[in-house]
């Protein structure tokens, strides 16, 4: 009974609280405090190790996150891809590689922030907490990839239905409750990170500058006209 209650709390109540916080607070913060939406880059203060930490971390985490999203969105296609063993191996190995890249980058980011006294001055307690969460999350993710292989397949069959059930407001914890504790930790921490997201510097992910690719070269703003041109 208590186990059931515990699962309901971790995999139903918590996700909803976190998702609700995420949507409410990101929108609120964008509308009320849009000044605070910044990547808060510290490249200006420390430029020697910046590249080696930040670049692997970003490419790593972007690919890994995109992989999770794909498995969530198109589980059938993923299973079809994995039907041939060599394709499964390719996917698993590249996923693991990007996971390790993320981990290396993240450790680099943390070490850089701790070792440079200038960068330490622009690192808040929130940042440290976020780094801790991301570190545990990345370590658990890489461990899952190592100890519970073929995640690309079991994610599609087991985790994707659970996530969809959350999204469809008809939560079903059957699959996730049967998962090993490491996977459970990863899931819980993922939702916690989503809930914590609007209170951190992570919001810069939401303001990636896609319009640059098709906007005009020069920007002119007129007070007297609605639209300007170069």
């Amino acid at each position, binding site marked *: 009974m208590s186990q059931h209650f515990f699962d309901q709390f971790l995999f139903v109540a918590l996700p909803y609280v976190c998702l609700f916080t995420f949507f409410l607070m990101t929108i609120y913060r964008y509308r009320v405090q849009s*000044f605070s939406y910044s990547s808060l*880059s510290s490249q*200006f203060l420390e430029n020697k190790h910046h590249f080696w930490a930040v670049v692997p971390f*970003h490419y790593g985490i972007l690919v890994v996150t995109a992989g999770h999203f794909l498995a969530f969105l198109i589980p059938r296609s993923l299973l079809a891809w994995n039907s041939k063993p060599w394709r499964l191996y390719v996917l698993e190995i590249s996923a693991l590689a990007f996971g390790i890249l993320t981990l290396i980058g993240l450790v680099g980011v943390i070490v850089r922030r701790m070792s440079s006294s200038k960068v330490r001055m622009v690192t808040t307690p929130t940042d440290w907490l976020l780094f801790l969460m991301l570190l545990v999350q990345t370590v658990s993710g890489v461990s899952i990839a190592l100890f519970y292989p073929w995640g690309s397949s079991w994610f599609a069959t087991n985790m994707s239905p659970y996530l969809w059930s959350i999204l469809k407001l008809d939560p079903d914890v059957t699959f996730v409750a049967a998962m090993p504790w490491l996977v459970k930790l990863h899931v819980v921490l993922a939702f916690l990170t989503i809930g914590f997201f609007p209170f951190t510097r992570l919001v*810069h992910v939401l303001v990636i*500058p896609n319009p640059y690719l098709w906007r005009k070269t020069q920007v*002119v703003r*007129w*007070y007297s006209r609605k639209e300007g041109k170069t």
Partner: protein
Amino acid sequence: MNIRSQVSMVFHLDKCIGCHTCSIACKNVWTDRKGADYMWWNNVETKPGTGYPTKWEDQEQYHGGWEKNGDQPINIKSTGKVRVIPNIFHNPYMPSMDDYYEPWTYDYQNLFNAEEGSDQPIAKPISMITGEDIKVEAGPNWDDDLGGSEIYAANDPNLKGLSEQQRLQLSSVERLVLFYLPRICNHCLNPCCVASCPSGALYKRGEDGIVLIDQKKCRAWRSCVAACPYKKTYFNWFTGKSEKCILCFPRLEVGEAPACFHSCVGRIRYLGVLLYDADRLEEVANLPDDQLVEGQRSLILNPHDPEIIRKAQSAGIPDGVIESAQRSPVYKFVMDWKIALPPHIEYRTLPMLFYVPPMSPVIANFEDGLASHKMQRLFHGIDEARVPMKYFANLFGGGQEGVVRYAMGKQLAVRWHRRAETVGDVDRATADRFLREANCTIEEAEAIYKLTSLCTFEDRFVIPPMYREQAIEMVKEPHEQRAETGFGFVGCPQRGL
């Protein structure tokens, strides 16, 4: 033709005494804040010298400005539509604080609180970032007055292309020379910072051409800092936003000159409106290097021409602005007299701050190792000047000596003319010959003399009525508007979490 107005500037370098009052005025008004502590929106450099940030003119290091490869249209040297994605994580051409300097203060409390001892207590320098003890090794004007220095002057990027003899001319003892180069944002017509911003946070104000950064849209992608070849956008390391000179637009809007202009002791600064044709910007920015100075001039339109006035009116430019453009001192320096030149036009941003190149010291022509004051050599020829023409050409002529020679020759002619007029120890014929050679009439020489030496506040600053802000007052409570000026919103700009 697409006529626009631009608030433009002229700095008369012959009058600059290098007092840094402009820098202090700006610092006190705008950048005396955490994160902006190292920024000098206005700074004064000693030339020849390396400047601030160190060697900012060396675009092989900083990759600022536009680049032109053959017949291809110009590109931003540091980024582009494709490179913006990898550059966003780590900008390879981003200068770091080491290229500027680490801001510091002094531990003044120690003077009062030090334990009693046998030594005088001192106020140790401490970093304004970390608060730790700091060994001060660089500052914003660290090479101040160090003309001839082998560490600073000898590393000036403008020395490129100078012969060994010319370099020696600049630095040999008893002959070494220096002049000052005050710098603010040029509020360019083809701003590289604006074009590079991935977020579109930077923009040029349509009505007056002032280039600003929307603090709410800036996401610290740092492209503008790398792209600006003059290094006049700065990264606020605390708020995580880029900032730059705003040409004191809140002051301009109430009819006052910008703080650095207002406070200038040497009265070297002039401000006024230029009308230009925005349709030809792209064409001019793509011209070959040797045509850029003339090309930029060809953009600027004559505000006295009835045809231009008619077109400006139909383009929606208010009569007050057109009238202001007709009285603009900048138009006189740049277009009528052609003695003010853009800095480093080869960066192709079309800067709208122009410099009157400085004449070298008047006396001390050397004859047999002794300073000579003979009358016929009262003013040495411009080619005998201590600063080689090639140096000025690199700085103000896009490498072309012709335009600089013209500007210098005219200034020299004005000196001969005034000497003949006031002191009388120079005969009129000599003065007239110099005027003729410089393509300058007596009326023009008088006008140059008056605007250079006898200029009043109203002569120097012809500030256009800012119709945009008058219009704001119609719809907004003036006190609220006043509180919002500067950064454009109420409330302390709080750093992101």
